[in-house]
């Protein structure tokens, strides 16, 4: 409301009252701050509530995973990919094994691909649930947080049954998946869970949060990222789609067997305000949960019989020399792995292009001129994970 129109070039830096020096207030938002989703630090220059400059400072969680990749072999590094986006680790596994398989070219069994997609989509739902939850929390709504975590807990239980881990699964291996479906009951449980999610829970979230007038007022027309900015800053995932660009690696650059499944790509339509505002990004995630449910149902209905590993677990992976960049659609956006192999068991160089890293950058541009509260909304709607930004 009060934002945007004012000329932002140093208005507050001038001395408006003779003799009284006025300057912008420097504010350290983070690294320990409830709204920064981790250890992100935003260096703000504000004039009262209006933000004039945002400088993200990152690296507090830096582990130099890319250096570690040069010391562990291809299979061992799968466990490190779990730790990038720890809210959707299966998606990260997927990105990595896809890249390795691009060089390795194993015959990945159909069943493995289906299982990969089921778990990756479950993981995506879990991540989106957290995104909704924490975004709601940033907007001051506590209760949706707990509801979303309740549903996420169900997903964690399901993934725990198939993969063994609760949060970090290490489920994929180059050439397949680690374990088969535990039992038929698991498939039934997944189906009943997604039915429950589709029919009941999403309605609850919508009633409680999405269509709440206060929530709409807080998020509509706030933090608008237009399509051109989104593309120029290489935003991907729900951030790009929230800006109205219909792009999804799963459809436009298909990997795995996503081309077999029928699903829609929700985009921001500016229902409550401008295309590309926080509400659009939020709503894209809600709708993606529904689409992921559709994919899971199709993948489980057509789950083929057969092996689930092309390479036995106890066989070392030796990747032929070469370089390949592979990208997949994670919950946060496009994860790219650029693997340079020198023919050995260990990658020569493994560059990770993480979606949150690129998505966060847009804050520098879009955050200017917002109010402090809107900046919180903006950062929340980008749904960043610091584990993946700092790597």
């Amino acid at each position, binding site marked *: 409301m009060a934002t945007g129109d004012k000329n932002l070039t140093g208005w507050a830096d001038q001395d408006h009252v003779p003799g009284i020096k006025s300057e912008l207030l420097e504010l350290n938002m983070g690294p320990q701050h409830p709204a920064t989703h981790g250890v992100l630090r935003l260096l703000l220059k504000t004039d009262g509530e209006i933000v004039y400059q945002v400088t993200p400072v990152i690296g507090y969680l830096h582990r130099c995973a890319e250096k570690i990749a040069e010391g562990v072999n291809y299979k061992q590094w799968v466990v490190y990919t779990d730790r990038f986006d720890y809210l959707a680790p299966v998606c990260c596994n997927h990105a990595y094994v896809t890249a390795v398989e691009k060089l390795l070219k194993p015959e990945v069994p159909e069943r493995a691909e289906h299982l990969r997609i089921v778990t990756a989509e479950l993981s995506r739902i879990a991540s989106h649930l957290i995104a909704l939850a924490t975004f709601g929390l940033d907007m001051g709504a506590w*209760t949706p947080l707990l509801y979303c975590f309740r549903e996420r807990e169900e997903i964690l239980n399901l993934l725990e049954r198939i993969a063994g881990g609760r949060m970090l699964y290490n489920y994929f291996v180059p050439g397949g998946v680690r374990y088969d479906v535990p039992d038929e009951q698991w498939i039934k449980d997944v189906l009943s869970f997604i039915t429950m999610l589709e029919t009941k829970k999403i309605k609850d979230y919508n009633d409680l949060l999405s269509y709440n007038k206060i929530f709409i007022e807080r998020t509509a027309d706030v933090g608008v990222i237009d399509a051109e900015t989104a593309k120029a800053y290489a935003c991907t995932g729900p951030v790009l789609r929230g800006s109205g660009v219909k792009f999804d690696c799963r459809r436009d650059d298909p990997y795995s067997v996503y081309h077999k499944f029928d699903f829609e790509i929700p985009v921001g339509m500016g229902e409550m305000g401008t295309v590309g505002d926080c509400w659009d990004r939020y709503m894209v995630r809600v709708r993606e949960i529904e689409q992921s449910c559709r994919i899971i149902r199709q993948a489980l209905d057509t789950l083929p019989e057969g092996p689930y590993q092309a390479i036995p677990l106890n066989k070392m992976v030796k990747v032929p020399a070469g370089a390949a960049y592979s990208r997949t659609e994670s919950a946060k956006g496009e994860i790219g792995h650029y693997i340079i192999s020198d023919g050995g068991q260990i990658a020569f160089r493994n560059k990770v292009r993480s979606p949150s890293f690129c998505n966060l950058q847009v804050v520098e541009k879009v955050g200017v001129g917002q109010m402090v509260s809107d900046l919180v909304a903006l950062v929340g709607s980008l749904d960043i994970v610091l584990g993946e930004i700092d790597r």
Partner: protein
Amino acid sequence: MEILTAWLQGLPGFGGMSDQGLFITGAALMATLMFTVMALCAIVFTWMERKVAGFIQSRYGPMRTGRWHGWAQAVADMLKILGKEDIIPAEADKGLFVFAPLLVLLGSLLAWAAVPWAPGFSAANLDLGLFYIFAASSMVVMGILMAGWASNNKWALYGAARGAAQMVSYEIPLALATIPVIMHVGSLNTQDIVVAQQGGILNWFVLRDPFLFIAFWMYFIASIAETNRGPFDMPETESELVAGYHTEYTGMRFAFFFLAEYANLFLVSVIAVMVFLGGWWSPIPGLDFAPALTFVIKGVLMVFLNMWVRWTLPRVRVDQLMYLCWKVMIPVTLLCIVGSGVLMITSGALG
């Protein structure tokens, strides 16, 4: 107060006391009572808040301390918080920093004096009771401003600035919403306001006429804002301002803010009960066997409503908060005053 002094006079040993002595003793007793009520508020309502929040959110809340549903959790928390190290930031304005929590506490404590607990039973039966309550509770805003400024913390300053703007603004609709009732009663005396609502639920001011009904909800919304609770917890906004004006406070001083928040919460709830919801009168006429208990139960229900709202709604933004106050609530409350007045004239109530 009169009841108390009369009761004191009847006690052995107090009979020979002078009136002045009786008054002072009675006042001291009353103050102790009020402070106890206030401390109890904080303890009971913290527990209640956690339980309400818990059950709303599909969980239990505290379950361990004291066996039954963790009833002793709030007591344990209080003890813990009192035992914590008291930190005053090095760059803080020490005097103000120490004084601010006291002022906040004082603001909410003073207002308790005029609350009518039962027929004839209030700490001070003032003719300007309602006015006095609003005047006293507006001291809180000074405390908050002081706390934010003295902390020498930018987040605290933000919280204080927001808090000052919010609380000063919302006092207007808060007071305006009660004016129709005052017009009906023709008195600011809190006892009189309650007495005027005798005769069952239909005689409560909230159901007297449609404008009063709207005024009640306006009062309710303004009271949430006045107590700095969600969805209007601008001064604290834990996701934006860390903890707002009390970011730097620890231990006992933080406990004062905490105490004041819950005391204020109960205060605005009992004022709502007193002004709109029939005070100590029970909904069914003739069943008024425990006035004070009825009063407190109604107050607790109002607190529950407040908590329910808090744990449901997202927070508004600070400019939207001001918009809501100045462009929605003040016009609507003014409309209520006019409308209620017109109804009074047409129905011949003034006649």
